[in-house]
């Protein structure tokens, strides 16, 4: 008790000084002291995430400097494996304390099925409304979806600046781009399906034209970002549609042949969804971690070191929601975290959509 009170008063004093001086110290404006104490008592935290180890490690290292008493076990896996493991292990007792995945629909499904527990804090309050569902599912990043192209081989005049441009390019130069355009296979990639179903919602009338344009160039579909990016870089494909700009940016830093466009008419934005498992073994450490990821410090790491985009509106820089708003304004269309994402997890609706896709895209 004693320590708690001392910590508390220390925070209070610091906070007071800070507010008097008009600055907000990032390290101190954090989780409640009793949460920290309880988390440190648990001393452990297990996370299942789809973010590469290398990127996640930036966050983990900083968290460990702040809370050295808490050991983190981070398991990196694909979105499907994460879902499989989480539900299987939950059925057997308990799974990871926290899951963190870009398959927004699967994460929402898990939360909807009662696998999550709520959490409310000063940090979660900073999130935009669409990125907080029931105080259970939280968006942690702001990753724009773009068009990626080969800079060596696609002439500047051809580079599409909007979805309309893209459709026009494909339908006016089908010979040049035949077999040279790539996108996700909605049957193989859950994220790919989610994106193209969002296109249908956002683009409305243009969506039919998009599918037709894909059909006219015999679009090459792939199951993963890696294979698409590799083929665009090599010139086997020239343009990739609906690629995560965060990944493309990482690659573009090493590889000068990768160019990225964020379409000016609308740019979809996805967010890595994090939730705390209902039967988490270390619920307090999980809350502390979630708060940390959403904190200013955590978000700065996401933006500047992990090559993802920060979602918190009060973080500045090019790779933040703020930076993107300056660049694209109202064109940004974040995928809302909520029951809307469950629509296409209904088997009949999903198969219907896939049929529509196949009919248009595979038409000769």
């Amino acid at each position, binding site marked *: 008790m004693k320590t708690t009170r001392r910590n508390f008063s220390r925070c209070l004093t610091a906070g007071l000084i800070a507010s008097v001086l008009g600055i907000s110290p990032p390290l101190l404006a954090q989780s409640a002291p009793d949460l920290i104490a309880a988390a440190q008592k648990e001393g452990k935290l297990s996370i299942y995430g*789809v973010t*590469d*180890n*290398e990127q996640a490690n930036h966050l983990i290292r900083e968290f460990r400097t702040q809370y050295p008493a808490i050991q983190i*076990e*981070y*398991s*990196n*896996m*694909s979105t*499907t*494996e994460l*879902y*499989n*493991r989480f*539900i*299987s*292990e939950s*059925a*057997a007792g308990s799974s990871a304390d926290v899951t963190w995945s870009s398959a927004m*629909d*699967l994460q929402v*499904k898990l939360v909807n099925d009662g696998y999550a527990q709520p959490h409310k804090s000063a940090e979660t309050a900073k999130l935009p409304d669409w990125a907080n569902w029931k105080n259970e599912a939280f968006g942690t990043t702001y990753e724009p979806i773009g068009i990626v192209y080969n800079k*060596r*081989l696609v002439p500047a005049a051809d580079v599409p600046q909007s979805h309309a441009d893209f459709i026009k390019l494909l339908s006016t130069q089908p010979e040049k781009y035949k077999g040279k355009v790539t996108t996700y*296979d909605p*049957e*193989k*990639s*859950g994220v790919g*399906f989610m994106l193209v179903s969002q296109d249908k919602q956002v683009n409305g009338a243009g969506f039919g034209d998009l599918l037709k344009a894909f059909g006219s160039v015999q679009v*090459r*579909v*792939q*199951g*993963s*970002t*890696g*294979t698409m*990016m*590799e083929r665009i*870089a*090599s*010139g*086997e494909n020239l343009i990739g549609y609906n690629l995560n700009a965060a*990944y493309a940016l*990482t*690659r573009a830093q*090493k*590889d*000068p*042949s990768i160019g990225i466009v964020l379409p000016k008419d609308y740019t979809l934005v996805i967010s890595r969804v994090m939730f705390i498992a209902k039967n988490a073994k270390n619920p307090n450490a999980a809350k502390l971690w979630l708060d940390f990821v959403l904190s200013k410090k955590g978000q700065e790491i996401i933006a500047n070191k992990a090559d993802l985009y920060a979602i918190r509106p009060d973080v500045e820089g090019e790779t933040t929601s703020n930076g993107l708003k300056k660049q694209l304004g109202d064109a940004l269309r974040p995928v809302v975290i909520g029951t809307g994402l469950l629509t*296409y*997890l209904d*088997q009949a609706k*999903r*198969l219907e959509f*896939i049929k529509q896709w196949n009919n248009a895209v595979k038409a000769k």
Partner: protein
Amino acid sequence: MLQTLPRRVVVTLLALSVFFPLGLVIYQSVLSGPFFMKTASLSLESFAFIFDDPDFWSATKNTLIVAVGMSLIAIPLGAILAFIMVRTDLPGRRWLEIPIMIPIFVSPVVLGFGYVVSLGPVGFFSVWFESIFGSVPWNIYSLASIVVIAGLTHVPHVYLYSSSALRNLGSDVEEAARLSGASPFRVARDVSIPMVSPALLYVGVLVFFLGFEIFGLPLILGDPEGHLVLTTYLYKLTNKLGTPSYHLMAAVATCIIAVTFPLVLLQRALLKSAQRFVSMKGKSARQRPLALGGWKWVALAVISLWLFLSIFVPVAGVALRSVVSSWGTGVNILDVLTLDHFHAVFEEATMIRSIVNSILIGTFGGALAVGGYLLVGLATHRKPDGLSRFVDYIVLTPRAVPGLMAGLAVFWVFLFVPFLAPLRSTLFSVWFAYTIVWLAYGMRLIQSALMQVGPELEEAGRLVGASRARVSRDITVPLIRNGLLGAWLLIFMIFEREYSTGVYLLSPGTEVIGAQIVSLWASGAVDVVAALSLINMLLVGFGLALALRFGVKLHD
């Protein structure tokens, strides 16, 4: 040879290890949802769904084409290769032993990717070829290419089995044929190879099995033009309905089992009639290599072409990719050379761990697996009764389940069997999955070693009053020492490259290179994948060279 009780224990353990995961898969296939959910009920809807899906039928057709096609390529080539390497005086034979093994220990995902980098539409070899001849006559993404590549890369499997059989033949018959004027090719075709037909039959069925199971190659090469095989179809089903559909995946796996199990029966029947050949082979100590004469150039040319196509081309692709930041049309390779990808591997703790774990699982795990296979082998050795026949059937069954599904089933076993649960996040679970999946392969190695022990030695032991266990310990096992070492080496290679099986068993601390490659692949770090694969190849190559140097023989 084992006493009755230990023998029963071994067979029971084996049956449990095989049938429990397998039963889980079959049970899952007749449910409407995940078996561990309360909402799941008995239903045949999964079969109705896949039988109604045109993709399933095209995948089935393609799978049959691939399995038949690659068997037709791999079996004759492997047998000829074995004949040349074992029975003739081809110069440089010893030097060829390591490269021949490469396709066995390189993960097919990596091989497939290597082919894309070198022979793909903008591959460096294609670009070079096009600049000389104007166009490229091949399409790496066609079904035919998949068949040819699968066939060429499975030659080593056939080579291994047929070469160990060929080694046991006396050379007198071949000499007789050669003396009466037959060409070396004719000798191989009409004398040597027919005499090892039991081994060829066995490996023929095994290769056909592997044809049903190949995943990496069609995943990489089949995607762009949409050629599905059953395993990639199964993989596709994972996400087709949005949430992973275990029941559909299990239904596909069950269909694969339903097709392959009759093959096991067929193989047994064939082997029975082939036993007559075996009794003729005898054990002749005298073996003289057949002089090839002018034919040696033909032989060398055939082997070089095969080595070039199935090893040099893909490995060069991977090696190149690991040292460049970009490649393809309009890239000058010299401008993009970099060692960054290797730095990325060595800077990342999980990568280092995956390398260390892979070595552990290959060496210690490999030895343990050989020990397990040996126990099973001894349990059935010289005991041609019902129990042994039962074992013969079950060892081939796990091979019928695609690795991805087998891995998932093993994951469930470790999850839901209470006393196994603590072992799940240890390397033991990975080892267990590997050992079961490669059971057929390992058992064949052990059995062929056991076959060579003359029964009279064991009978002598028994006559002077030694127990069965004693005979095994003091006579049989010491006699097959070399065979065991060779098996260990092969299992080491297989375990190093295994990838899909370990995916679900990965947890912090149990990463292995194969599964790491799959996970990196998905997020796009193809460059790091290339570097990691190259490291893996060098590692295994080094291990192989070391073992051969210390006198371990791949076959005796």
